[in-house]
């Protein structure tokens, strides 16, 4: 029965129209899902989110004027200042930066060359509950001293793009960083001790070297005078970093918010705008192709009106008569969807190598594929409903 129906109803099907639709829809759909995938792949470059530091926080410093410096304003935050910030409604929690009060030299081995880079260094610590690293990675045991550090990502860039490039040394990705031999020599109070270090992560927003608070307390006591000074910097967890009231408060108190959040925010914003435009273009192309298919189907049904009517008179139901066309549309759309996903993967394989230097996390293609599936399902549903309605409209002869 299916073969006979198809033999009858395939008449007037225009391969040219269907191919035209398929290509147009393929282009539109590929643009959409490639844009979605690209956005998801690139987003982390501009994102402030760091897996090991909670996101809704600000680092603030006091701006010290030249005049202020001359009268002895050190730019420290006093207890009253901190209490005042803590009392603000937008403030969840305030953490103090603790500085190292002893001398530090860091030694970094450079591969198998036997060479080493040695530099004077500094540490800062913030309370552990601002840091989202597992306890196992972020602890310090004086009996087996090893210093975990979080380093500004700028330092890695500095090394990779500045130092390594000019010295002919290999570039290091974030993944490889744990393999670099790193040690710290700490001295003070007549002691001079060397212990291994380990980089547990990079931060875009903490432009410093962070060590566990426990280590800092231990080291300040051992090599310094215990570290009781007032902090120069505060880390503040807030309800919403974009809040205007925060900005106002900072301005009123001559505090400065550190970090490249604003810059990253702008880049992120433009990325979103550009990707949205590209997606919109893809959607428009897909929509137009949808109408091309609709027109083609309407034309086809129009040309086959008499055949369809005669089949209904024989006792075929509108659903049975529609089925060949419905199956045809589903088949075409499924092929277009599969091709679009393949093209997206091919396109992605071209741009992914360009992003390697950023050492971004691997993003799955599930969201992009699902986007394609949803769009195609909607288009197919639209087609199927149109076919059903058109066939149903043939039920009565409007004599």
């Amino acid at each position, binding site marked *: *029965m299916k073969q*006979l129906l198809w*033999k*009858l109803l395939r008449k007037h099907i225009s391969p040219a129209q269907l191919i035209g639709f398929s290509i147009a829809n393929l282009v539109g759909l590929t643009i959409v899902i490639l844009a979605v995938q690209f956005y998801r792949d690139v987003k982390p470059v501009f994102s402030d989110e760091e897996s090991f530091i909670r996101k809704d926080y600000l680092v603030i410093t006091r701006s010290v004027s030249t005049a202020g410096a001359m009268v002895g304003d050190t730019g420290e935050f006093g207890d009253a200042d901190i209490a005042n910030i803590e009392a603000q409604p937008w403030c969840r929690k305030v953490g103090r930066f603790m500085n190292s009060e002893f001398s530090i030299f860091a030694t970094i081995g450079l591969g198998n060359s036997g060479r080493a880079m040695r530099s004077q260094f500094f540490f800062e610590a913030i309370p552990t509950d601002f840091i989202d690293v597992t306890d196992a990675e972020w602890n310090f045991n004086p009996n087996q001293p090893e210093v975990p550090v979080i380093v500004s990502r700028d330092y890695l860039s500095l090394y990779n793009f500045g130092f390594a490039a000019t010295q002919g040394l290999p570039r290091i990705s974030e993944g490889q960083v744990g393999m670099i031999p790193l040690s710290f020599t700490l001295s003070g109070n007549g002691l001079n001790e060397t212990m291994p270090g380990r980089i547990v992560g990079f931060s875009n927003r903490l432009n410093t070297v962070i060590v566990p608070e426990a280590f800092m307390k231990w080291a300040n006591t051992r090599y310094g005078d215990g570290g009781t000074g007032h902090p120069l910097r505060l880390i503040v967890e807030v309800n919403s970093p974009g809040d205007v009231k925060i900005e106002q408060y900072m301005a009123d108190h001559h505090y400065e918010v550190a970090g490249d959040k604003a810059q990253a925010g702008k880049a992120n914003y433009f990325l979103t705008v550009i990707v949205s435009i590209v997606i919109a273009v893809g959607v428009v192309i897909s929509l137009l192709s949808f109408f091309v298919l609709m027109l083609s189907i309407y034309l086809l049904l129009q040309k086959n009106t008499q055949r369809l009517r005669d089949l209904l*008179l024989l*006792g075929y*139901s*509108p659903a049975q008569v529609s089925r060949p066309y419905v199956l045809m549309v589903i088949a075409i759309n499924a092929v277009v969807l599969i091709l679009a996903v393949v093209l997206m993967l091919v396109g992605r394989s071209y741009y992914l190598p360009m992003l390697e230097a950023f050492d971004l996390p691997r993003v799955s293609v599930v969201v992009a594929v699902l986007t394609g599936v949803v769009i195609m399902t909607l288009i197919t549903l639209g087609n199927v409903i149109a076919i059903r309605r058109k066939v149903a409209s043939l039920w009565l002869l409007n004599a």
Partner: protein
Amino acid sequence: MQQINIHDALPTVFAGRERVPSQVWQCDLTMERGKRYLIVADSGTGKSSLCSYIYGYRRDFSGSIAFDGQDISSLSIGQWCEIRKTSLAYLPQEMRLFPELTAMENIQLKNQLTHYKSEKEIIDLFGTLGIPEKVDTPVSRLSIGQQQRVAIIRTLCQPADFYLLDEPVSHLDTANNAIVGNLFAQEADKQGAAVIVTSVGNHLALDYDVELQL
């Protein structure tokens, strides 16, 4: 289905005319299963319209038509499809064959819905009607008389309570007319079905119980 009742029906195009002299239009007519009806009509008196109203694909009439008391305007599409497969067999005057399909394919298109006749029975019917060599010929290459016979075989390929035949033998000679009359008589007897035949002159050869002037 036991009976078809036509009550005060009149095609919309006839509205406003003086009372139409007819034994069908604007009358109360009940046709029953098992009987044979001949509806004799002049051209333009709405013969094919009557068939299309009963078969449910036109509604441009006033009055009502009911199957076993149920107004047909209340039937769902699903119910109509079922009726067209099991209760009401219709042979349209214009036959409505698909010219690009062969004679057999045209018939199978119906028989595959109803599974009423075997392929052998269908081939035998081709023989009975004198066109055994036309089984696999595309309908577009058949003469009008041959096409009419193919359409007749197709009409026979379903169970029915009522056979509704719109000028079934308009293109057939007397001998073939008799054969066709015989086929429908046999089929109707077998199922206890009614046969309703319209005609403008060349009547299907059958013993009619009722003859009506449209």
